């Protein structure tokens, strides 16, 4: 819905993502704020945003394959692992620079994703979800039992550098990660307005009708998996060079489930929903993790470990309560809020 008094007077305005000068002002000031953030933000907040952004990239990919194309995938953590390992191997073993390894690891993860997405040609729904869980375990197992991945020892990639300038702190990596997130978000937002995006949505809403209309199901399903895993691979590469240690234990099924949780809580089929979902789960996680020592201190008879399990209970319950009261996700709430302020001062 357009805000009051805003009309599309030309075609360019009609297809624009950003329509009003207020929009532009908010966007530009937000970007400036974001890029200046390391100058005054606390170290913890910066490192938190880094991890947040990596999750956002992963969930953006998930949004494309699950939210838009309707193919539920629990393999995102494994594809992230593929990206992380590819990037590490390329930079360590072959001396390729990080800047080339970043897209290459996305492509590699995408290629594995096409194999992983192959079952989607035969099955859908929960069966497909379970197949992707199986793929997760197979991928992790293969990584662990290969020589080139450093097997159980893992790999130690170096932080990226450009002309002798090392991105070796969280503040410096922040610029790379935030830039990648902005590009990836822009790409995802636009992809959904293109022919490809519409084909995805057609497959999600009714695959039979889509096929009748000339959407090549096989091609577009695999393409969705490729794009989604490309996102995961890029995120994995960033993760590898941020943490500088890659180990198969970093990518577990619980992470994959958490990513799907972020998607649902944020809202399926909405790009802003990705941001809401990731923020919600990550902040909940941090709150739970960091209040438990305080809880242990406030209630000394309890001790640290029971406080930690209380945190686990709180996390589960918060997610459950959320699903009961807002199963359509935060994006839905956001839409309601947006339409109400756009209509202001009118009621309808």
């Amino acid at each position, binding site marked *: 819905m357009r805000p009051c008094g805003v009309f599309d007077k030309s075609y360019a305005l009609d297809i624009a993502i950003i329509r009003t000068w207020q929009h532009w002002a908010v966007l530009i000031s937000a970007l400036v704020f974001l890029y200046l953030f390391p100058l005054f933000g606390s170290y913890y907040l910066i490192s*938190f945003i880094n991890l947040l952004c990596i999750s956002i990239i992963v969930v953006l990919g998930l949004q494309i394959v699950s939210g838009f194309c309707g193919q539920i995938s629990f393999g995102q953590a494994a594809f992230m692992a593929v990206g992380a390992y590819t990037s590490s191997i390329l930079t360590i073993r072959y001396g390729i620079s990080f800047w080339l390894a970043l897209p290459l690891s996305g492509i590699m993860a995408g290629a594995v994703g096409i194999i992983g997405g192959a079952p989607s040609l035969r099955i859908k729904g929960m069966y497909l979800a379970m197949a992707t869980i199986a793929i997760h375990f197979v991928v992790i197992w293969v990584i662990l039992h290969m020589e080139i991945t450093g097997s159980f020892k893992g790999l130690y990639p170096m932080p990226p550098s450009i002309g002798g300038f090392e991105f070796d702190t969280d503040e410096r990596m922040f610029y790379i990660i935030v830039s990648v997130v902005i590009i990836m978000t822009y790409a995802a937002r636009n992809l959904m307005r293109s022919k490809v995006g519409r084909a995805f949505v057609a497959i999600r809403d009714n695959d039979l009708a889509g096929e009748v209309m000339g959407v090549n199901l096989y091609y577009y399903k695999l393409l969705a998996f490729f794009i989604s895993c490309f996102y995961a691979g890029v995120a994995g590469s960033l993760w590898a060079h941020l943490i500088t240690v890659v180990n198969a234990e970093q990518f577990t099924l619980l992470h994959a489930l958490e990513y799907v949780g972020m998607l649902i809580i944020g809202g399926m089929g909405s790009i802003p929903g990705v941001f809401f979902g990731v923020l919600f789960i990550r902040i909940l996680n941090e709150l739970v993790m960091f209040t438990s020592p305080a809880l242990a201190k406030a209630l000394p008879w309890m001790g640290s470990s029971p406080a930690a399990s209380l945190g686990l209970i709180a996390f589960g319950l918060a997610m459950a309560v959320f699903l009961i*009261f807002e199963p359509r996700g935060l994006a839905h709430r956001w839409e309601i809020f947006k339409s109400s302020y756009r209509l202001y001062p009118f009621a309808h």
Partner: protein
Amino acid sequence: MGKRLGILFTMVVVICLSLTMSTFGAEKEVAYLSLADYTGPIAGLNVPADMGLEDFIKEVNAKGGVDGVKIKFIGIDTRYDVARAVSAYKRYRRTPRLLMVNSISTGIGKAVARLIERDKKAQLVPGDGEFQAHIGRTFLWGPAYQDAFAATLDWIMDDWKKKGKSGTPVVGYLSWDNPYGREHLRGGKEYAEKLGIKFLPPEFFPPGTLKHDVYLTRLAKAGADYIHAGGVDPTPTNVIRDGHALGLTKTIQFTTDYWGPTALGIGVHAEALEGTVITSFYERGEDARNNPFVTDQWKKYRGSMDKFNEVYGMGMSWGMTYVAGLKKALKTTGYDNLKANHMYKAYQELTGLKKHDIQGPCAYSPKSRLGSKVVKIYRVKDGKIVPITGWREVPNAVGLHTF
């Protein structure tokens, strides 16, 4: 409905924030960060160990702290998850006077070690030989896994000779299919070769495997005289249970490393575990139960001795090292300038520190990252863990492997 939810959420946030705020204090304070797995696969080890440490710190603080400086214990539940641990470390990195980080799990230890080096802080990890091979800011709790495993192999040779058998013993090894499970062999395998032991191809299985019959029968068929069961308890207990059900305990001697069965598990599976040999760098079983220093603290904070877990004592020994290191660091710089770097230096000067016999004398030095260099060999006898040797020096197996 939405409004009520909003109020609920705000309330939760406010409570959380006020809890966080309440932790700020004005006293002279130093911090100890424990990145432990309280709710994951190795919780059975972490929870009692950190309990011991927490109670020890409470005791120290109640007596006025170390030269007037109180110790703050921060326990973070990582759930065996590297991302969580790294995030937690970054959150607490700037805590004033965070002097030591204890990272429990091989994966977490390796990931945090990098950051520790960069921040010039100090870290404790369980027993990865890698950190002894490449000397850095990471200290081990006791001997490295491979060193302790080599000590077990030494004992196996002694036992073999004592039984008057000729030839060389055949040793099998089975453990978790993860970095921890494979660490013992990096050096341990070379040591076995040096001793002339016939070492069978190792067996690996996922944590949480229901039955271990396949692996045990394969090792038995290959003629194993000794089987070393790895993994953190209850895995070794379950492995030996399966071995007992297969009738292997009669002919094969089972050994475990220091995460082997504790007195709690042995109470129930006394029959199956009878005769199991445990190599441990901290006091177990009857030894720990007869150590008044440990039991007094347990009784004071935890009550009855029924649920006493020996790992509790190990946690206390971390506290002792920390207090001794803090004293040294305070002496050299005073409270105002105290940094983790001073603690790192102080730890290296703790060589020979006695720990009430919970653990052997401290072996930290500029050239060593080992918490101690001695182990005791225990055996399960009539449902009790009794020592069969005194403290024995561990061989240097780390040095045999190229890392």
